[in-house]
């Protein structure tokens, strides 16, 4: 449908924010699983929390181009915060969730200044270092965190004072799903906003982003804070629904796993975290049934192959497939424009 340039421009900008049929389908299935897959609620709960965590990483990696090797710092912080809050203050899930989210965001805000100083490798190492320091703190402050034994005795009250957490994970899944969905809606809104677009310019070319008047550092601080809050929310959900927190929530492998999931699912379209989390958990399940001890081998192999084939090219293939499904012309392959 042709039109005046103004109409075309309006239409194209509106299209990026419009919901696609597949998205409706995805959430329909996710909510349908409440009734359709009652025996899998525990694993579904785990998947949806992991997906939220991966989505939070996508906000900084996929949209702003900040790679992090220590994103579990915020996940773990949120988990410990929610767990300790439930033990020491009050067992109401929503209060704990909101406070844990805000606290993780605050931590993200503070550490963002460290992360912004460096570039590239230094940045990777700083994110890693922050997670290590927090992990070490959690390990040593046994009186508060339970140290290596984990945080025991987390007792959660009913959600909204109505829904008790049950053994089969039904309440847990519904709770996590609703929270994730709401946070997703917000994130989806953000990434197509002027703010979200400005982040993508920073990802593509920070030099030019500055040269068109974008305060790059402040935007990065904002999105890093946001991503930390999201990761903290995911951690809090895990702590509340499993009623247990161990050092595992903040460990290096958790940061690595979430990065891996996001890379498998693809960055920069928000659903990568969901796709990656599902594929990852299913693979983990299948492979560990087959060779329980050595499943990391296959995960490693997937990573190696993924990188050798080229993430970009993989993403491009997905994009082509996506376009074909929607009956659109294929996007052209990416070529390099400009440098850094």
């Amino acid at each position, binding site marked *: 449908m042709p039109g005046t*340039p*103004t109409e*075309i*421009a*309006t239409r*194209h*900008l*509106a299209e*990026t*924010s419009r919901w696609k049929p597949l998205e409706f389908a995805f959430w329909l299935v996710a909510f349908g699983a409440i009734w359709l897959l009652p025996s899998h609620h525990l694993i579904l709960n785990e998947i949806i929390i992991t997906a939220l965590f991966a989505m939070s990483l996508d906000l900084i990696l996929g949209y702003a181009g900040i790679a992090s090797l220590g994103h579990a710092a915020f996940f773990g912080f949120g988990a410990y915060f929610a767990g300790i809050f439930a033990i020491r203050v009050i067992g109401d899930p929503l209060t704990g969730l909101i406070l844990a989210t805000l606290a993780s965001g605050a931590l993200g805000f503070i550490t963002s200044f460290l992360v912004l100083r460096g570039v590239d490798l230094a940045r990777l190492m700083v994110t890693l270092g922050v997670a290590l320091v927090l992990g070490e703190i959690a390990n040593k402050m046994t009186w508060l965190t339970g140290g290596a034994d984990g945080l025991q005795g987390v007792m959660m009250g009913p959600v909204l004072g109505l829904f008790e957490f049950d053994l089969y994970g039904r309440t847990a899944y519904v709770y996590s799903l609703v929270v994730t969905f709401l946070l997703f809606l917000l994130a989806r*809104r*953000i990434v*197509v*906003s*002027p*703010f*979200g*677009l*400005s982040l*993508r*310019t920073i*990802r*593509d*070319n920070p*030099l*030019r*982003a*500055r*040269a*068109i*008047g*974008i*305060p*790059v550092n402040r*935007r990065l601080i*904002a999105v890093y804070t946001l991503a930390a809050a999201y990761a903290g929310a995911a951690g809090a959900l895990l702590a509340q629904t499993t009623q247990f927190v161990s050092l595992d929530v903040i460990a290096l492998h958790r940061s690595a796993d979430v990065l891996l999931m996001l890379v498998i699912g693809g960055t*920069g379209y928000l659903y990568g975290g969901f796709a990656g989390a599902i594929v990852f958990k299913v693979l983990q399940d299948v492979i560990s049934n087959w060779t329980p001890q050595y499943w990391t081998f296959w995960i490693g192999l997937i990573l190696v192959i993924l990188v050798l084939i080229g993430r970009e090219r993989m993403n491009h293939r997905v994009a082509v497939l996506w376009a074909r499904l929607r009956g659109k012309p294929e*996007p*052209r*392959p*990416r*070529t*390099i*424009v*400009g*440098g850094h």
Partner: protein
Amino acid sequence: MSAALETVGLEKRFGGIVATDNVSFRLEPGARHALIGPNGAGKTTFVNLLTGVLQPSAGTIRLHGEDISAMPPERRVKRGLVRTFQINQLFAGMTPLESLGVAVSERMGHGYEFWRPAGSKSVVIDEIVEIATRFKLVDVLEERTASLPYGKQRLLEIALAFACQPRVLLLDEPAAGVPEAERHDLLATVAALPRDVSVLLIEHDMDLVFSFAERISVLVNGALFTEGTVSEIANDPRVRAVYLGESLDG
């Protein structure tokens, strides 16, 4: 009347090397001014000082009378000092529509608006379309920047700067690498820039300099060597010696 852009005793040292040597330079409002100089004369350093990528060791920079020497780059852009790049610096994964949209929304102060979709304001759309028309980008608005022909990318490079509503525009070799067939479009748009935008052209291509500029400054070894009208510079034997002769040989 204060100059559009003015430097006073501007100096930049890297260790023992003086890259910019006591440059006092004046760009008049509405000027079409070219800055030329042989390779290694310090043009890039000078531009980086003006835009705030580098901090001067001494001296001041004034934009329409206001001292901007200590301002970070993005604030200078908001004050109306905008540059283009010799090598395209674009947003490869975005469309020209989105790229221009960001620049326009940012200028209008919408950069932190995260609650509404980009493009929901018609003033923004109207301006994007206006700029795209001016820079002949209307037919490629929704293509990925990375897949645009080079000439279009070059136009987008300048259009992005124009979207920031510059009062002073620094054009860094705008025609560099543009194939002959697409060159005309580019030069025409540069020539058609509105007169209330003061332009400083940093250029190697003497044909472009002579056809576009009204005044020329020559930078040699980091210092301002001479300045004058086009005919003065063209007929200055010293300039020929340090610059023109050299560039004709090379």
